[in-house]
């Protein structure tokens, strides 16, 4: 009991002295509050941005999954052909590649300007170049992939710059250094036109697009 009282007194005296220490200066100026609010705002915006990216990724994934499932379920019916664009303009290197592949482009923007019949004919033309070991019986569908540095293959395939009759890809892209479509820097590969057999979703042909304008597109 004596010990407790002794500790009480010791605690009381010590804690009272703690409460008399010199405190640091406090800054409640508008500048500091502004900076604090600014950092809070950045945090909130970052969180919102991340949520938006995650939502967009989920939407793209769901869309690809739904289209793939649809293709499997309607094996006897060719997919409707349409043009899907996620970029308003096509980089010049891509226009070069399209030209070398004899794919028509608009003179003003360089965008592919194919009708559904032309898409079908283009796909069939490349289909005829396929080796006999990889025949397809349905029209091929093509998309243009232009991945940025650091982009995973899955992300690149899920966000084609330009696509026709896109029905989803299951195949991994071949190994290689994917870089952005900046023709001014040394680029190993700027993009690919990927032909996909539908409804089998087999990736059967890729037309590599060299980054250097004027060089030949390799079909393989």
């Amino acid at each position, binding site marked *: 009991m004596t010990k407790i009282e002794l*500790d009480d007194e010791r605690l*009381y005296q010590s*804690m009272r002295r*703690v409460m008399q220490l010199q405190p*640091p200066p*406090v800054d*409640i100026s508008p500048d500091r509050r502004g900076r604090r609010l600014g950092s809070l705002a950045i945090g909130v915006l970052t969180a919102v941005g991340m949520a938006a990216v995650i939502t967009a990724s989920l939407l793209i994934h769901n869309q690809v999954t739904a289209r793939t499932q649809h293709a499997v379920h309607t094996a006897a019916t060719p997919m409707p052909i349409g043009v899907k664009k996620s970029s308003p303009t096509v980089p010049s290197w891509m226009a070069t590649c399209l030209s070398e592949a004899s794919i028509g482009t608009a003179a003003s923007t360089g965008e592919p300007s194919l009708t559904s019949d032309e898409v079908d004919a283009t796909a069939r033309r490349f289909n005829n170049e396929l080796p006999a070991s990889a025949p397809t019986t349905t029209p091929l569908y093509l998309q243009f992939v232009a991945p940025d540095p650091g982009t995973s293959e899955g992300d690149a395939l899920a966000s084609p710059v330009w696509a026709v009759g896109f029905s989803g890809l299951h195949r991994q892209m071949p190994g290689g250094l994917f870089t952005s479509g900046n023709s001014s820097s040394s680029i190993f590969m700027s993009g690919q036109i990927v032909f996909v057999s539908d409804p089998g979703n087999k990736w059967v042909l890729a037309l590599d697009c060299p980054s250097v304008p004027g060089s030949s597109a390799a079909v393989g």
Partner: protein
Amino acid sequence: MATTVPHRLTGSQIPTDEVDVALAEFGPELFGLALTITGSTADAEDAYQAAWMQAATHWAELRNPRKRRSWLASVVARSALRTRRRRLTWARRHPPISEAQGLGAMMVWDPSLGTALLELTDRQRAVVALHYGHGYSLDETAELLRCSKGTVRSHLARSLTTLRRTLHDDED
């Protein structure tokens, strides 16, 4: 009956004169409270600064100015507990490369008690600081920390047991 809706003050709305008076009057004991709870001068300064920022922007929410002291103690105590929680989370992820001046070093008049206080939990230190340092009753302390009276009594009893044991061990 008309009620006043609490609102957050911004910019020039903050009564800086009143805040300055409160800083001069209660600053030392509130910093001591933050130091006791966090156990480190660096964390105490962070908690102390954050608490005053929070208090300044919510200055108008206190309807009875006579309760300013206990209101500020509550704000500082919760700020210090928050800071301590963040520090522990951070410490689990990042090993410390330097130690700020701790409570034991600051309590030059009784360093063994300062070191022993670090053996307590954050909440236990908050109870000890508010009860012994600020002179609040245990019921008032419970109200300030927004916990039950029984919890505060339990914290205090365990604090004294731990302190007695630690001091006894040290002084043997």
